């Protein structure tokens, strides 16, 4: 394997508290090493360069049934007139384009946040065809009939823990996500809304209870990533209260609230729609064990895709263009795909844009908030460089606010916020913090012995958006995959998973359940490591749990 010497770069490595320090980085055999015994095969002069670990996107919809439905639904947005190899739209890129665009922006790991266990094989096969980056998925629970019936009959927490650990293994995932806890299931029984303390008609349990048992399961199993929660009442004015109640449901255990922007709405003012970013961030700043990603919206055409079929069915009336699909899936979950155009002429959309930015800027600790657009729900991941500029440049931000087609200045505190993110904070929120919260060992950092996932930016570029859009060099697994902003030979990443312990007797119970009620057997539900590498096409990397399971 070639050796690489990044010479004299300005290094940002928050894990090691290194911020803008002149340093050399050496790479050998896929790892960062202290020094090289002989002259490196490739020496890159980094005098005018910024060096960071490879970026990590902890919430991006890049693989699975709903993504493919969107690709096929919206083919008119794939641009046939442009003579590039791959013409798929940025908000529904092909797997090939997904990998090319991520690596071209210096991202080396991406995580699909809504992997339905019943659809896991497809998600992994699809993600296996994304070049360059490492992938991973959060298994969706909390709307599956099996778990809900367990909770409903008062099953012991340890039995639930066994089930959760089994699902992580069977679906080859790194975390657990719950979407509109109980709501997707309730929709199948024709319930159209389910608030945090409302009982579902079928199971007579509340979203609070579901979030509580799942947060506890994830914690007790020692899974590094806290329960990843898409709260109840997505998009509903006044929903910040149910967001706070959902956080409380974890009873102090670690919890990650995803695309919090969509859950930070008040219902004040003439239009009964207002920002509650202050209330939400006040909570975020004071509550330990709470993290979030933002789900910033960007103006323009995109497509919303979610397991939240309850809300997506309601939202289909806003589809742009006027087409959509909702699906009930295998007593497991659901999905809804609704194309949408965020318009700056729309008061609601403009305020959503401001709420997202307020949330970023009011959050005090860059380790607790992550940079996402909930790709593609708020906008495509390719808009990250633009978003970074919005966070780092107040003048730019204020100019855009002034230029919005609808005047929202009386409804947002955005202009009063003086804060500008620093490069160190950007490095934290896109590298060290996501690696830490996902439990990715040796990633998101530049320590000696770490995996050589490195991004080099050109400091000479005056425009920060341009700089983050086109890093000059990217190293993945010790291989220079982007050189002078041009993608080199293809490589293929691994699938990152965790494997907490469980009592295998749960498999007997599940086997019985599958035989009686499912349309596939348990043995064909489980994806083995061999199947991952030999048939699906992606090797698995097992990450450590934080500790041995508690109960």
């Amino acid at each position, binding site marked *: 394997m070639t050796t690489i010497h990044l010479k004299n770069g300005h290094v940002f490595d928050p894990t090691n508290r290194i911020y803008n320090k002149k340093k050399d980085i050496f790479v050998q055999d896929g790892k960062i090493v202290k020094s090289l015994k002989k002259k490196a095969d490739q020496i890159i002069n980094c005098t005018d360069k910024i060096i960071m670990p490879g970026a990590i996107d902890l919430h991006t919809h890049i*693989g699975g*049934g709903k993504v*493919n*439905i969107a*690709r*096929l*639904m919206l*083919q008119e947005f*794939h641009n*046939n007139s442009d*003579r*590039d*190899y*791959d*013409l*798929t*739209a940025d908000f*529904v*890129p*092909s*797997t*090939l384009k997904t990998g090319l665009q991520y690596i071209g922006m210096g991202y080396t790991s991406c995580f699909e946040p809504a992997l*339905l266990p*019943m*659809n896991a*094989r*497809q998600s992994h*096969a*699809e993600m296996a*065809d994304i070049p360059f980056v490492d992938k991973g998925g959060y298994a969706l629970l909390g709307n599956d*009939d099996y778990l809900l019936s367990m909770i409903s009959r008062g099953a012991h927490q340890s039995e639930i823990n066994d089930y959760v650990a089994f699902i992580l293994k069977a679906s080859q995932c790194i975390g657990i996500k719950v979407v509109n806890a109980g709501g997707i299931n309730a*929709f*199948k*029984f*024709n319930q159209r809304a389910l608030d945090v303390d409302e009982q579902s008609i079928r199971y007579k349990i509340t979203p609070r209870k579901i979030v509580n048992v799942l947060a506890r399961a994830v914690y007790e199993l020692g899974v590094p990533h806290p329960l990843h929660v898409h709260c109840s009442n997505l998009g509903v004015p006044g929903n910040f209260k149910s967001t706070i109640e959902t956080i409380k449901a974890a009873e102090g255990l670690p919890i990650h609230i995803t695309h919090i922007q969509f859950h930070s709405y008040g219902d004040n003012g003439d239009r009964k729609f207002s920002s509650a970013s202050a209330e939400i961030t006040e909570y975020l700043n004071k509550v330990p064990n709470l993290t979030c990603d933002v789900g910033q919206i960007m103006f323009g055409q995109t497509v919303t895709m979610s397991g939240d079929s309850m809300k997506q*069915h309601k939202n*289909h009336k806003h589809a742009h263009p*006027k*087409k*959509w*699909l*909702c*699906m*009930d*899936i*295998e*007593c*497991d979950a659901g999905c809804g*795909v609704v194309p949408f155009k965020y318009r700056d002429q729309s008061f609601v959309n403009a305020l959503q844009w401001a709420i997202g930015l307020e949330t970023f800027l009011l959050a005090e600790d860059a380790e607790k908030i992550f940079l996402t657009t909930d790709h593609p729900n708020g906008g495509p991941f390719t808009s990250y460089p633009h978003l970074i500029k919005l966070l780092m440049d107040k003048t730019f931000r204020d100019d855009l606010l002034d230029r919005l087609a609808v005047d929202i200045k009386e409804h947002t505190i955005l202009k009063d916020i003086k804060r500008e993110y620093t490069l160190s904070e950007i490095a934290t929120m896109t590298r060290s913090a996501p690696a830490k919260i996902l439990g990715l060992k040796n990633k998101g950092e530049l320590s000696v012995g770490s995996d050589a996932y490195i991004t080099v930016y050109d400091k000479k570029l005056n425009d920060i958006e341009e700089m983050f859009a086109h890093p000059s060099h990217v190293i993945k697994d010790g291989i220079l995959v982007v050189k002078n902003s041009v993608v080199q030979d293809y490589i293929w990443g691994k699938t990152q998973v965790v494997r907490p312990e469980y009592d295998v007797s749960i498999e007997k119970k599940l086997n019985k359940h599958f035989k*009686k*009620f*499912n*349309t*596939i*057997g348990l*043995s*064909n539900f489980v*994806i083995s490591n061999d*199947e991952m590498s030999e*048939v699906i096409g992606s090797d698995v990397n097992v990450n450590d749990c934080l500790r041995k399971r508690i109960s």
Partner: protein
Amino acid sequence: MPKISDSPKYKDIVCPFCSLHCDDIELDVEDNKIFVKSDINESCKKKFEQNNLNSITTISSQLNGKSESFDNAVKQSKKLIKNSNETVILNTSADVNITRELLTSTSKVNGIFDHINSETFLKNIDIYQRKGFMSTSLSEVKNKSDVIVLFSNNILENYPRLVERVLAPDNSFSIKANKKKIYVIGDKKNNIKQNLKKDNRIKYIDFNLRDTSILIESFITKSNETSLKENIFNELLQSINTSKYLTMCWATSEFIKNDNCYNIISAISEYVVSINETSRAACLPLAGNDGDVSNIQTTGWLTGFPSRIKFTGNYFEYDRDLYHANSLIESNKIDLVIYVNSISNKKLVLNNKNKNIIVGHPTTKYNIQPDVFIPCGIPGIDYKGLIFRTDNVVTLPLEAIKIPTHRSAQEILRRLVN
């Protein structure tokens, strides 16, 4: 006679042959021959056991119907590809991994890629490309659907275990299975003949499927404009209106010959969408048995389109009309077709005006001798693989249960184009 052991060597094997892909097959393999031990439909059993025929294992590559070595068949194929100005690679049955290889191969020969059933499956995709769609999957139908309306003249011929495994199961999780109501609408005589088990939950209604749109309109207006007797229509309407979770199920291939095919499936879909304003209902369109769904999904994530793609250098484009393989073949607009037929052995209709290569199931049938025939192994019998079930949700693992006697389609394709 080989000895068949009492306990099967293989359990929970996935059947690759119809798009239900039942995964409860138990079988034994002795002397590289398969013996199905599960008590399943004879036609399903036959599909496995036909792979024991000596002709399958002994068949070699052929040039114009005459046996030839594999190397010579590859050599001749490469020559045909080199001399071709416009090559079509037509997926006539493949799993996910072969479809991946098909796209790579098409890009290498600057060819056109399509699936033999694209005309049918594009009609289903049309619905959600143009309007709203509510769909469901097999386990939801099994466990939640209290009323099922199935439009079909011969659906059980193509999906032999649909009734026992999905529509009229012994157990349902959320409802009482014995209270389910299943209406099979179509050719009553044929449908009764096909469904051997008597089941009081199933009612067969004789109906000309061509008039399905009128029936749907009658449901909406609550006024019978069809040839159905009033009492039958009223019972059907009553069941639909009182259902908690209605499923409307069809196979578009049964409507495709009607000039109003899209209107029919669109009418069903719109009706289902409207029911969901106040109650719950969903569509379950059944896919073809030639790896249709695996083709749609794999091609979808790799290119953004379901089929009908032309590769040129480092560029590809989709054109639904221009790159419709069947139409190109019929109109003599291409000079070489490579059929890749790894699962099904349905008869392929070749055109003698162009050159034909078949990489196929050893018992593939055809109307005229192809220029080259190269037998390949079958995913799910000879090789491991991945295949999508009819509902587009569940992907199942295909096992290698025999020692293969033929190369995999992927290996053959790589030899042809590299």
